[in-house]
């Protein structure tokens, strides 16, 4: 204890703040102890006893699937016996888009290129599965089961592997895991709940049907607790004085009513930790030497930034003419109940407004209106009903509005210096 006190030196605040961003978010979640035990036990048996297994980790995005796997692997590799034996192969469905690439990657990661390199590159028509996957990961004599090193296959984005031709890779992996060859453990990670329905029935039959569901079944108090632990500095932070100040400021931040409300709102909309990290990251980026702690106002600002509507923001940047066209489209949608429209109809609607108002402020030529209409299409605020744009003339091409009416009204309220008559026109029930 005394030794630590001696080390306790005060550092400049700037240095502390740089350290803060490195230190946070490093701790792992421990909500899923039951699942992690199951997985750890399974992988340990594969590594030490040479048992072949297959398992799927399923859960929504941002629920900590990869985190769980990493934690389990870290724990497993601390055991010496496992560390010496286990070979790992990590594949990702987004990178290994077909079986050929996947097999090359397996070869590379198993570091067996010297052995099979000849076969991969020399033969014109490679007998891939037999030669590479099977011979490499496995020799058929059952005696080898106890002597060859176990291989762990991690298939990230597992559902994409199910879209490969004939699902050959999956069939072969599962087949090896169900036969007396090299012990392998296949761990699939996916966010699709219906992933088993994607598998062909012979592939499905070979899969062991173990699934670990990572569902975020926690309440708001746990969520709040997570925010607190995520933001708190660990005990081994170099400057203890700063860490204490910081942690107490985090404590007060979390007890603030308005912060709690904002967090409740985020919690209501999604429980995933990634969007929480996004929010906290936005807060942390506001730290500076002159303001070394997070204030409630920062979090509210960040929350507002996260929750703002993208399309309504785009509407703020339109010209008055474009806004008028949007309003005309909204009226058309109201009158014709969502039937598609073309430029002529919109222009006519707009002209009706101009006639009534009698002031010729917005009396634009047809080409100008057309240009504005095209700009709206480029922004994808409107989109053609059918993709064939070349066949019909642009004026008569049928379009649909990609905005909700609430978005238009909201944008009108916030539009800088919106003319009153335009506003009134937008409010009026029928153009």
């Amino acid at each position, binding site marked *: 204890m005394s030794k630590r006190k001696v080390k306790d030196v005060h550092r400049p605040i700037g240095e502390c703040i740089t350290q803060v961003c490195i230190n946070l978010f490093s701790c792992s979640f421990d909500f899923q102890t039951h699942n992690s*035990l199951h997985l750890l036990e399974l992988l340990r048996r594969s590594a030490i*006893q*040479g048992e*072949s297994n297959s398992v799927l980790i399923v859960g*929504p995005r941002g629920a900590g699937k990869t985190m769980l796997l990493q934690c389990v692997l870290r724990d497993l590799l601390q055991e010496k016996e496992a560390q*010496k*034996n286990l*070979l790992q192969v990590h594949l990702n469905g987004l990178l290994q888009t077909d*079986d050929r690439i996947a097999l090359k990657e397996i070869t590379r990661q198993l570091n067996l290129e010297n052995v099979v390199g*000849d076969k991969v590159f020399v033969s014109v*028509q*490679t*007998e*891939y*599965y*037999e*030669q590479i996957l099977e011979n490499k*990961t496995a*020799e058929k004599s059952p005696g080898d*089961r*106890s*002597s*060859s*090193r*176990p*291989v762990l296959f991690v298939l990230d984005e597992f559902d994409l592997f199910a879209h490969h031709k*004939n699902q050959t890779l999956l069939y072969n992996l599962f*087949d090896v895991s169900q*036969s*007396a060859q*090299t012990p392998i453990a296949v761990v699939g990670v996916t*966010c699709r*709940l*219906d992933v088993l329905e994607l598998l062909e*029935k*012979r592939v499905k*039959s070979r899969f*062991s*049907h*173990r699934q670990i*569901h990572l*569902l*975020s079944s926690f309440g708001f108090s746990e969520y709040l607790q997570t925010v607190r632990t995520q933001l708190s500095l660990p005990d081994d932070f170099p400057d203890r004085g700063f860490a204490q100040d910081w942690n107490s400021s985090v404590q007060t931040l979390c007890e603030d009513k308005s912060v709690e409300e904002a967090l409740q*709102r985020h919690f*209501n*909309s*999604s*429980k*995933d930790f990634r969007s929480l990290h996004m929010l906290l990251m936005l807060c942390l980026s506001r730290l500076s030497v002159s303001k070394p702690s997070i204030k409630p106002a920062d979090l509210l600002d960040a929350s507002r930034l996260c929750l*703002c*509507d993208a*399309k*309504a923001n785009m509407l703020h940047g339109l010209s008055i003419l474009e806004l008028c066209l949007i309003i005309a489209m909204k009226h058309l949608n109201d009158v014709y109940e969502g039937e598609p429209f073309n430029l002529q109809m919109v222009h006519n609607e707009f002209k009706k407004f101009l006639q009534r108002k009698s002031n010729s402020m917005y009396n634009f030529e047809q080409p100008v209106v057309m240009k504005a209409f095209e700009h709206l299409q480029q922004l*994808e605020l409107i989109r053609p009903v059918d993709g064939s744009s070349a066949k019909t003339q642009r004026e008569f091409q049928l379009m*649909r509005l*990609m*905005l*909700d009416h*609430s*978005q238009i009204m909201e944008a009108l309220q916030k539009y800088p210096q919106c003319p009153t008559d335009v506003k009134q026109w937008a409010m009026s029930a029928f153009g």
Partner: protein
Amino acid sequence: TPHQATPSIPCRSLPTRQPANILEEARARLHVSSVPESLPCREQEFQDIYSFVESKIIDGTGGCMYISGVPGTGKTATVHEVMRCLQHAADVDEIPTFHFIEINGMKMTDPHQAYVQILQNLTGQKATPDHAAALLDKRFNNPAPRKQTTVLLVDELDLLWTRKQNVMYNLFDWPTQRHAHLVVLTIANTMDLPERIMINRVASRLGLTRMSFQPYSFKQLQQIIMSRLNKVKAFEEDALQLASRKVAALSGDARRCLDICRRATEICEHSTTNPSATGLVGMSHVMEALNEMFSSAYITAIKCASMQEQLFLRAVIAEFRRLGLEEASFQQVFVQHQALCRLEGLQPISVSEGLAVCRRLGACRLLLLEPSRLGVLQRVRLNVSQDDVLYALKAD
């Protein structure tokens, strides 16, 4: 030369541990890979295939057989056992010696690779598919002195289908040649495969020697597990019966049954606090394993979804009820969603947020969505039944 190098995985530094207690022993025996010497409950099929192949070998003629059955009913294992027994008979000179070759449609990148593999297994030479086909043709069509019978096992036959079906045609045509001495055993899942996908001249050459493996009944499944355990007393009688009855009712897949039993031993091991004094695997453990492996996660997923996601699902159902259809556009659902938000006393959410909620539900396949480029125009469908959603939302 590089050809003689056998690719292999490096060896472990320490050999595998021997099973320490009864449950581990049981688990090792129950693993799908530890195929027993003789398969219980497939004696009839074994006899049929055995006599078929044996008679062909003794006569020196050729023939085809088509074996079908759903996955996990012991087709490949039975054929392998037949071959083992015949090999043994050949070793003690009861029958003439023969070649056994095995190919698997799933393990080839292309149907034409079949030729290459057959040739390689027969003679050890390597060739391109076309060349291999020509060599095989020559070998099977021409007489040669002291020719051995070749038994060819073709697993996953349906994968060998090509548009012209020439691979299948050749495989079934060679046995009909006088000098071929070739017996072809084909395995696939569907019973009516020859009628469904083969053109007439292929189907007629396949002939009428068919055999179908029925799914295991619960008694057979029970017997299989008992024979695997082989006097290792790890399971209660009732627990075994429950597992086999459940699997027999669903699919009759032996692999599934073994996996469930294996999982049940794990659960049993965890439930006892003292690892040395492990009890028997009881009903409750099997029950838990069954729930884990058969239950669908949709309902739990809905229960664990965030408030807005649950509201969105309710809005979807409300909109379906209003329209009387099973499909609605996001815009329509969103109107309902806003109304529900107000009803629940929540702050209404923006369209962007609503789309994000919708996308999250789509990513885990509770909803089926059109590509998200369509924005508010995209159509939304439920991937689960409405009753399930209502049940999940009501239960809490």
